């Protein structure tokens, strides 16, 4: 299979932004084109826009042509938008990758964006409840916090995980985001402060939850053959796995073991011809603190049930067995749905280029993965990246 590389990356600052959806698009576009060398915009033949709910948050559908015009390109091979809730951004990159592998596209722009902060936040909360099955689960008042709260309850019940361990995840990721000027939250949040923050859905408190965030992120992809024209340090896609299992909560096998993640991770490692511990670091989807703990386990970084111990021992910090979420994760950076997955990939590329601040640099890293879950953790998407092609 043809090797595909990421040759440029750029971010709009994440946060509660005094900017519209289309302004975020322009910021990320400027950043990615500032980053790339020797590229004429005319050579971009494909555009993939990752956006979860522009219809709700910006009252705008058919967003791909809008983005193309804002950016100043005329895509003429593929132009589309990808929607997979919280994984919409990674979906754009996965789809662009496939398009380049087949030879349909030559150079593709992937831009992920979400504008979530609205004058009336009740609208945002209402929209978020339709990410679950609205007619059967959302209707009961369920949305992300109660679902992940129940995952935490089961994990605590079955494996003895504690709220203190969950708070440590938040402390770590907020610490990393103090090094990230693009992050929504740039202040230290010690574990005690997490444990003293308002209860949202027990056992989850405010700082167990990622924020409601505006932001955008962009990357440019092309084939291995052309990659060196545009950057000295391309980031290669070397593996992939994705799995969807169940939708209605009634049909879940478990809340404490995420079976679709186990399947996606197995396929990602198989296709990259590696084991989990061959990775040098990972970006995983810490929408809630408990998510990161379950992901340590089901992505294969520790034994089942030992996720709490993994954070407690500092194994997910730099210097530990598997540094996780060095840019600050969703907890520290914020979670603009469509932008999140691409924001993670930006971190991986900047780590490989050694351009991140040295406090969070994973020195000499050669391989990493980006993981997103979406909805009620029923879809898991993984891309594996290398500094070298397969």
């Amino acid at each position, binding site marked *: 299979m043809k090797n595909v590389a990421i040759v440029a990356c750029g971010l709009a600052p994440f946060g509660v932004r005094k900017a519209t959806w289309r302004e975020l698009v322009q910021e990320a576009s400027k950043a990615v084109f500032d980053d790339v060398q020797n590229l004429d915009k005319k050579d971009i033949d494909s555009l993939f826009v990752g956006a979860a709910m522009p219809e709700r948050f910006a009252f705008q559908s058919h967003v791909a042509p809008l983005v193309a015009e804002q950016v100043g390109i005329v895509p003429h091979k593929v132009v589309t938008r990808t929607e997979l809730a919280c994984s919409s951004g990674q979906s754009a990159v996965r789809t662009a990758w496939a398009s380049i592998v087949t030879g349909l596209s030559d150079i593709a722009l992937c831009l992920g964006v979400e504008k979530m902060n609205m004058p009336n936040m009740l609208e945002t909360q209402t929209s978020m409840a339709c990410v679950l099955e609205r*007619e059967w689960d959302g209707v009961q008042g369920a949305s992300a*916090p*109660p679902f992940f709260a129940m995952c935490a*309850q089961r994990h605590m019940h079955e494996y003895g995980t504690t709220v203190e361990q969950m708070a440590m995840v938040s402390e770590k990721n907020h610490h990393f985001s103090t090094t990230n000027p693009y992050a929504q939250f740039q202040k230290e949040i010690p574990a005690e402060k997490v444990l003293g923050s308002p209860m949202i859905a027990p056992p989850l408190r405010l700082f167990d939850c990622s924020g409601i965030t505006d932001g955008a992120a962009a990357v440019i992809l092309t084939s291995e053959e052309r990659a060196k024209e545009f950057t000295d340090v391309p980031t290669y896609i070397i593996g992939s796995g994705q799995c969807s299992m169940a939708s209605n909560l009634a049909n879940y096998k478990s809340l404490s073991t995420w079976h679709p993640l186990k399947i996606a991770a197995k396929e990602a490692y198989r296709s990259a011809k590696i084991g989990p511990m061959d990775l040098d670091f990972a970006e995983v989807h810490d929408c809630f603190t408990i998510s990161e703990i379950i992901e340590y386990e089901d992505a294969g970084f520790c034994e089942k049930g030992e996720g709490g111990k993994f954070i407690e021992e500092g194994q997910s910090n730099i210097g530990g067995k598997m540094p996780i979420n060095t840019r600050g994760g969703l907890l520290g950076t914020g979670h603009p749905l469509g932008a999140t997955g691409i924001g993670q990939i930006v971190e991986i590329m900047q780590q490989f280029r050694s351009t991140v601040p040295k406090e969070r640099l994973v020195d000499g890293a050669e391989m990493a993965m980006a993981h997103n879950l979406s909805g009620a953790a029923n879809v898991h998407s993984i891309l594996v990246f290398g500094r070298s092609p397969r």
Partner: protein
Amino acid sequence: MTTIVLPYMLDFYPLQDEDNTRIHQFYASLREGKLTTTKCKDCGGLFWPPRVACPGCNSDQFEWVELPDEGELYAFTAMLLGAPLGMEKDVPFVLGMVQLDGTEFKVLSRIGNTKYEDCSLGMRVKLETYELEDGRVWFRFVPAD
């Protein structure tokens, strides 16, 4: 008689009559206090929520069967902040996944007549149906004792 206060696209409750859904029988049974679903006549597959085409064998021949009206709490939490439009007045409320007796289904539901502090894993709960303000019908679970 139907007065939808919210614009339709922000109304969480399903449209329930035969002009709008092929599973209107589910809601008619719910009005009689029964939680039902479809069972495939060809492969015997039992699915939640009700179907009009079988994801197992591709049949479209179903019979309605009654589900147990009791079960136990597999997991629960409470919504304390951030409820959607139309549910703000209900906060705080308890949500739980009810493992229906003798089935694989862990149906998500409001847990009424109780507080979060008074719930426990494995607690017995039973079905309760009720009428919405506009005449549609819905369900929740409440402590069995």
